[in-house]
């Protein structure tokens, strides 16, 4: 059974259960993939029947600490290709080094876990700032984002607290998921099950966009112009959905 490609049922909890099963039975996976994976000819695909026991989470937190657990979760949200394998190796070392596992920065899986979780959190932070709402005719606020990682719910969590008395919708264009907030909770829905009553912008919208563009253009000091510095902090991939960058793109 060694050297196979193990399949998990797309959820984080199931992945963790599978990994612990592998560790306990001394099985060394060649790869771990979700059900969307199309195996190539050389793959030896193995599907195990493993229960989804959420208690695994508290088990990891007690033995490796909540910081380690959160880092693993951020890796899971990332778009990195072999993230499941990175999580496997981190947990394998975690069993040995317990809450000190992340101090072992000379291990490749630790280095990757730290870097990837930073990359995911960094993207969440950027979208907290760079996301732009547009007001629709019916006063609903609407925004589109195109994140590399699966962070729509983390972004939603932020706006749930910030704009709690507004109706808003955020769409992840890449993953085709929509987050809808009804002043109480937000719901993640797949794009197929969702349609907008109107996509017409409110009357005020153009005026506000223009006002913001005026401010944006005015606030830069021309004697200090520095395109490279701007690009470093606000890479072009974000510009597409930002009102103030429309004229510059």
């Amino acid at each position, binding site marked *: 059974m060694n050297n196979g490609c193990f399949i998990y049922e797309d959820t984080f909890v199931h992945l963790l259960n599978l990994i612990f099963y592998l560790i306990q039975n001394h099985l060394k996976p060649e790869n771990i993939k979700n059900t969307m994976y199309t195996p190539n000819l050389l793959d030896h695909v193995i599907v195990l029947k493993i229960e989804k026991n959420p208690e695994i989470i508290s088990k990891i937190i007690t033995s490796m600490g909540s910081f380690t657990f959160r880092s693993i979760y951020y890796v899971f949200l990332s778009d990195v290709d072999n993230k499941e394998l990175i999580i496997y190796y981190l947990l394998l070392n975690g069993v040995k080094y317990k809450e000190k596992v992340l101090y072992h*920065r000379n291990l490749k899986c630790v280095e990757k876990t730290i870097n990837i979780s930073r990359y995911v959190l960094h993207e969440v932070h950027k979208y907290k*700032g760079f996301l732009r709402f547009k007001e629709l005719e019916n006063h609903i606020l609407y925004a589109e984002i195109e994140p590399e990682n699966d962070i729509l719910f983390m972004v939603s969590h932020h706006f749930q607290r910030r704009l709690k008395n507004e109706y808003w919708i955020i769409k992840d264009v890449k993953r085709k998921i929509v987050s809808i907030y009804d002043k109480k909770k937000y719901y993640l829905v797949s794009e197929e099950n969702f349609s907008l009553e109107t996509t017409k912008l409110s009357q005020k919208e153009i005026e506000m966009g223009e006002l913001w563009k005026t401010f944006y253009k*005015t606030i830069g000091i021309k004697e200090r112009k*520095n395109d490279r*510095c*701007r690009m470093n902090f606000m890479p072009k991939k974000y510009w597409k959905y930002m*009102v103030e960058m429309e004229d510059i793109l």
Partner: protein
Amino acid sequence: MELKDKLKILADSAKYDASCSSSGSTRKNKSGFGNVAFSGICHSFASDGRCISLLKILMTNCCIFDCKYCLNRKSNDIQRAIFTPEEVCQITMNFYRRNYIEGLFLSSGIIKSPDYTMELLIQTISLLRKKYHFGGYIHAKAIPGASEKLLKDLGLLVDRLSANVELPTENGLKLLAPNKKESNVSKIMHYVNTNQSKKYVPAGQSTQMIIGATKESDLEIMEKSANLYSNYQLKRVFYSAYIPVNQDSLLPTLEHPPLKRENRLYQADWLLRFYNFKVKDLLDEKNPNFNILIDPKADWALRHLNEFPKEISKCSYYDLLKIPGIGVKSAKRILSSRRVFKISFEDLKKMGVVLKRAKYFITCNGKYFMNYAFFQKEFIERNLVLEEKIPLNKIHEQLRFFNE
């Protein structure tokens, strides 16, 4: 006048204020509209690479003062405008809803009298907080010379309150800002510092100095900063390279704003606040200005080469901080990791150490990175100067707008 034209004039007049941070305060969304994130959030970056976090505007650019360096001085023939409190609220609320901004930065020229101006600011911000229930970040400028009562009222409404020192010495002020008194600014700072609490100016105060408009040396500037930090617990001192906006015989004629000097001052400012350096370590009467070619920490290390190379696996946290290329974060990472494994040069790189600078000053497990015979001041200095030309954009986020 149309709102758009007003915004243009009053943002243009406000843009020279360096501070745009929205950090240091935290507020839950109780009122229903907006909260404050402790870390601060940048919402955009302007064409000069500076972060845009707050709607930075003046209430009015009318001013009874005649400070030589200022665009809004009384004697300048420019278009003047004034916002109504309602207008400021409308713009702030609409921008905040669309996630353009993190909050408001409201400053003002002095119209009629300091008290009158301050009352105008209070009226506006209180409208925003009470009528519109705005819970986002607000940074307001305190007007020097206004009464203590008003200072108290304003501080209860905002997250951060600041008053600009503008020039590092009283002589500079006398020369260029004859209407301003240093004592008025220190009165504000003293009041805010003694009363600061969770309810009163929770994010603390900051200030700003213009660099290069008067003849002060870096030593004088840094001593002023050190005093401000220790006397008033300031959160930040901002340095702003002088940009000539006015013609005046008392002002220097500069071709470019002294951005590199500004960069060095920020680096030194960090050394004072987070790296346990003192001003006298970095500068003295003989060398009153920073070396433009080498950053202040590396410059210090070169002058104290007898303390180096330091052994990564043994030296203390404070010694680690003294090594060029090692920052607060990487020093902490080294401390936690060296207990569990032997750190190599390669590992240091993974921990965020800027090896191209650090390597000259350290040994890893007793080994130097090259032949130890090259551990000489001239050799290291030459290499550091060569490497400085590479953009420094990763040293520290806060230095972002000073990279040339």
